[in-house]
């Protein structure tokens, strides 16, 4: 059974229709890459799935783990195992990173009926995850993303993902603004988490990230719909021919990956 099943999703933002009938099916263990030109609706997909206010669902359904995802509050989606890595992580001065992460992790655990972690257990977990991403511990004592470099913010997103251990992670252009070393570090963090019961939706503009996070499926999003789906080689074809190559193929095609 699919973990995530999006069917004919239409999303409006500020009265304008951005997603115009998007369908996608993701099974546990799979990595799906969503590629597309600027303005195609890539970030809108991420925000709509995470439940941001102002992303109005005009039509369509989204099922996650057999539940109607769209009726859940953002925090309930997180507790159900969904994670969105932001393209532009928000700076929150005055809110301590450790305090925030502990509050987030324990709120999720509580919502799932699991025991909350005490400070010692939490710190032990944090240290283990920091080591994987080669992040410095002093990052924890700072305010959330405040004064972080672009690369630090993205690594902090992946660190949070590692800590929260979601079932479905959506990475929204996590590669943008990263140099090659940071990109590899982010990719290592993601690859270390690939597991049979976990799925990833990797939203990206460039093929580069997919050299390091090799996807099982690649979808091209254009004008609010998936217009082409294939395996990892599709990303290479896009890299070679550019998005113009796909521009002629605006008619929605049957997505061929659901049964994979």
């Amino acid at each position: 059974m699919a973990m995530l099943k999006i069917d004919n999703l239409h999303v409006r933002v500020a009265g304008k229709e951005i997603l115009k009938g998007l369908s996608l099916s993701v099974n546990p263990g799979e990595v799906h890459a969503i590629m597309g030109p600027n303005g195609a609706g890539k970030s809108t997909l991420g925000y709509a799935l995470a439940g941001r206010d102002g992303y109005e669902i005009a039509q369509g359904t989204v099922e996650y783990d057999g539940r109607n995802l769209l009726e859940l509050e953002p925090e309930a989606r997180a507790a159900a195992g969904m994670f969105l890595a932001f393209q532009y992580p928000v700076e929150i001065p005055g809110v301590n990173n450790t305090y925030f992460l502990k509050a987030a992790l324990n709120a999720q655990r509580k919502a799932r009926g699991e025991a909350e972690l005490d400070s010692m257990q939490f710190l032990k977990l944090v240290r283990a995850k920091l080591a994987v991403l080669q992040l410095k511990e002093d990052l924890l004592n700072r305010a959330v993303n405040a004064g972080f470099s672009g690369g630090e913010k993205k690594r902090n997103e992946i660190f949070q993902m590692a800590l929260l251990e979601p079932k479905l992670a959506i990475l929204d252009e996590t590669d943008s603004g990263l140099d090659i070393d940071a990109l590899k570090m982010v990719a290592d963090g993601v690859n270390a988490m690939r597991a049979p019961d976990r799925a990833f939706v990797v939203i990206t503009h460039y093929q580069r990230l997919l050299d390091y996070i090799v996807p099982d499926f690649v979808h091209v999003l254009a004008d609010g719909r998936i217009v082409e789906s294939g395996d990892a080689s599709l990303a290479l074809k896009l890299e070679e021919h550019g998005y113009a190559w796909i521009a002629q193929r605006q008619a929605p095609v049957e997505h061929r990956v659901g049964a994979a």
Partner: protein
Amino acid sequence: MDGLLGEFGSGDAQARAESWRYSRLALRALEQMPFQNAAGNAQLPPALIERFDWPQTRGHRLVFVNGVLDAAHSDAGASGAIIETAADGARTIRFRGKGVLHLVFANVASDAPSRWNATLHIRVESGKAYVAEQHVGTQGADVLGALTSEITIDDGAALQSATLGDLPGSASLVRRTRIALGNDAGFDATHALCGGRFQRFDIDAELAGAKAHLASRGVFALRGREHVDVHLDVRHAARDTVSDVMWRGVADGRARGILHGAITVAPGADGADARLETKNLLLSPHAEIDAQPVLEIYADEVKASHGATVGQLDERALFYLRSRGVPLAAARSLLIAGFCRAAFARIEATDLRGPFEALLDAHLPQNADGAA
């Protein structure tokens, strides 16, 4: 008859009216009360004592009950302060070298509305002094306290102060502070104002000596019908003086907050560096915050900046926290507390930060999700 406005206002009638324009009604309402002089020998209830009996300031403490020194609860033997009382009851507190003093002003309600007045002179002659000032009170009939402080910081000396206005809904406080700074003198003040029926803080600082430097930070966190009015008036009167004003305000319910920050750079005060920032959060459609920065510059070579904002919680930050699993109510209180705490970042005596954060925690909207 100018009533309380004549008593608490300064300058001519027009200046008084202007300075109190947002709080005249609050003052008028107080005027209607048949105030008697508050009893200075009122008993301190144990619950009130608990609130100021911080272990770290034992031996450093003066307690005033309704404006009158309570010898039984005061012990400033270790504070390093020299304390003298004038014939009119005004007290002079002098520091030479390091000093730490905890001033407590307890408002103890009686059966009828009551009021008190107190005057303090604080002089830091050398070295660095720390003064924590705490206003607390018991619920009951209205108490109106008026505290006047004259602070002098001599050449090369420094004072760091931390002021907690933590009053019950029946207590009002009018606190007027005048500060004069000598050459290379420093004053660093942090405030947290919560509760009370009405709190008015007038802070007049004169940077009279070259290289004198002042920092004023504070937060008011208001709810219900609480009303806090802060008037800062900083004058740069000498060369190379520095002022850094950073206040935060949060208002919920029908609360009213006012932050008036005036900075004047006098002729000849070249090299002055003045910064004024006030950021405010409105949590309810019925709350009001008036932020009023005023810069008057009469010198040529001056760095001056000011910013004032009144807004709502950042929707992006709220969504970010929720998307990680933090429930809405907890995310809101996390953001509000973070917004306020920025004002406490510079309290050097970190063991004093605890009472500040505890006060905020008690007054900010709490995580209503506790039972979930």
